[in-house]
């Protein structure tokens, strides 16, 4: 396995480009996610952050470049092998993408229930043990996603992603639409997941407070490419105009005192 600074390279994106009908969205994207690292991807709306994530998980195929996850090239990988690889990933989508026809507890244990036989009681217990960490009430387990609030749906989607303790976590705007207290709880959870199980995470977010709380490394996507890379602390001293626009609204003192 490829290593960098004595750490395993979990995800390596190399020279990735993607366009839709001659509209270039991403151009020559290069970055690495190391073992135990939490990476935040920031950028303006429509800058291609979610497209990048969809390329990483194989929903979209890049026009050019390579994506290596745990030493396996994802681009042009046969579908069955891609699916096997994806089982090691915990993913949340921008709008939750919970299955409307299933109850919340069935949504949470969906991946586990596909892999092994699990009865309703065990399933609910497993789902309960996860939602406890996310500040959700057990009564939501027997409800359908349409019967709970948007913020709760977001947390159920996160519960589905972390169910089974995957080593690689990919979150697309996990704290958007959540109140600051719950947002902070989710950040804490991402941090805990990365530190305690030795996992690695990529989080796409606009929430700079969240970036400061969870990220070891930050990349900014601007004008189709990565225009800045650094740590959250370095963001506040950066001369990059776009980064300054992002950090301007928040007082760095709050986070780094």
């Amino acid at each position, binding site marked *: 396995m490829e290593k960098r600074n004595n750490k395993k390279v979990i995800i390596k994106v190399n020279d990735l480009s993607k366009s839709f009908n001659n509209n270039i969205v991403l151009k020559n994207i290069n970055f690495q996610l190391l073992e135990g690292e939490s990476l935040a991807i920031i950028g303006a709306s429509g800058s291609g952050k979610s497209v990048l994530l*969809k390329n990483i*998980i*194989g*929903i979209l195929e890049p026009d050019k470049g390579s994506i290596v996850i745990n030493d396996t090239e994802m681009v042009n990988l046969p579908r069955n092998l891609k*699916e096997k690889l*994806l*089982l090691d*990933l915990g*993913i949340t*989508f*921008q*709008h939750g*993408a*919970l*299955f*409307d026809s299933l109850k919340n507890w069935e949504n949470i244990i*969906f*991946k586990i229930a*596909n*892999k092994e036989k699990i009865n309703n009681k065990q399933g609910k217990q497993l789902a309960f043990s996860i939602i406890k960490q996310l500040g959700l009430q057990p009564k939501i387990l027997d409800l359908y996603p349409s019967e709970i609030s948007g913020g709760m749906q977001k947390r159920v989607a996160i519960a*589905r992603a972390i169910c089974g303790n995957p080593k690689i976590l990919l979150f697309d705007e996990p704290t958007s639409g959540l109140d600051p207290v719950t947002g902070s709880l989710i950040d804490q959870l991402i941090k805990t997941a990365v530190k305690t199980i030795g996992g690695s995470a990529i989080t796409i977010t606009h929430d700079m407070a969240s970036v400061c709380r969870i990220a070891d490394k930050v990349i900014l996507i601007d004008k189709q490419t990565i225009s800045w890379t650094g740590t959250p602390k370095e963001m506040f001293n950066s001369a990059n105009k776009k980064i300054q626009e992002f950090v301007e609204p928040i007082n760095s003192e709050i986070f780094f005192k």
Partner: protein
Amino acid sequence: MLDFFLDILGTTGKKFNNFVANIGHFFIFFGSAIYWVFKPPWYLKKIFQQIIDIGYFSLPVVGLTTFFSGMVLALQTYNGFTDFNSETTVARIVLTSITRELGPVLTGLMVAGRIGAKMAAEIATMRVTEQIDALGTLGTRPMQYLIAPKIIACLICIPLLVLIGNIIGILGGYVIAIYKLNFNPSLYLYATMEYLQLIDIIQGTVKAAIFGLIISMVSCYFGYYASKGAEGVGFATTSSVVISSVMILTSTYIITALFFG
């Protein structure tokens, strides 16, 4: 002037090109869906849910439609054949029309409207809300989990609905013949049984199975490739009903021609 014609030619060519590409795309989807219908494991719970939804909950609408069609048919036939041996003629025409044509076609159209629209809307909503993408990342094949159970359920339910619809349609004709036209019940039933032929039942069942395949494939196809949010869901729903209905009416001619042509 030349530019004008070139423009028309270009637009027509582009549309034709898209049309051919869409047909090809549909057949690739069709092949893939058939593969997943036969590939284990089967999601039996999902298949059962679909059978209840398609079969059981379509019974009232199919029953009502075929019952009234049988009634209308008996009345119209009697008016047209009043000078002839009406009892035998009415029974024969009601039976033949219902079992060969009206039963399967009306059931197909009703199910296309009720179930086809629902399937397309459900899958299209799942597509535009990223649920289908999520399925793929959770170790599940969307074709196997979402599409195959719907196709299997349609192939089981629609022939059964047609058989039940046929019985109800013939009953509708019987009710009018006996209670309005004052036919002799024994004679009418005897004529019905005498003209009942296995080939008609087989033909109706074959049609129903093909209609089931058409409805499920077309609806799932439009739903699966939906885009552009709510507008895309609406487009998928409308297209699935219109295309399914046209294909049902076209294929019923082809099947009839193959059986009796």
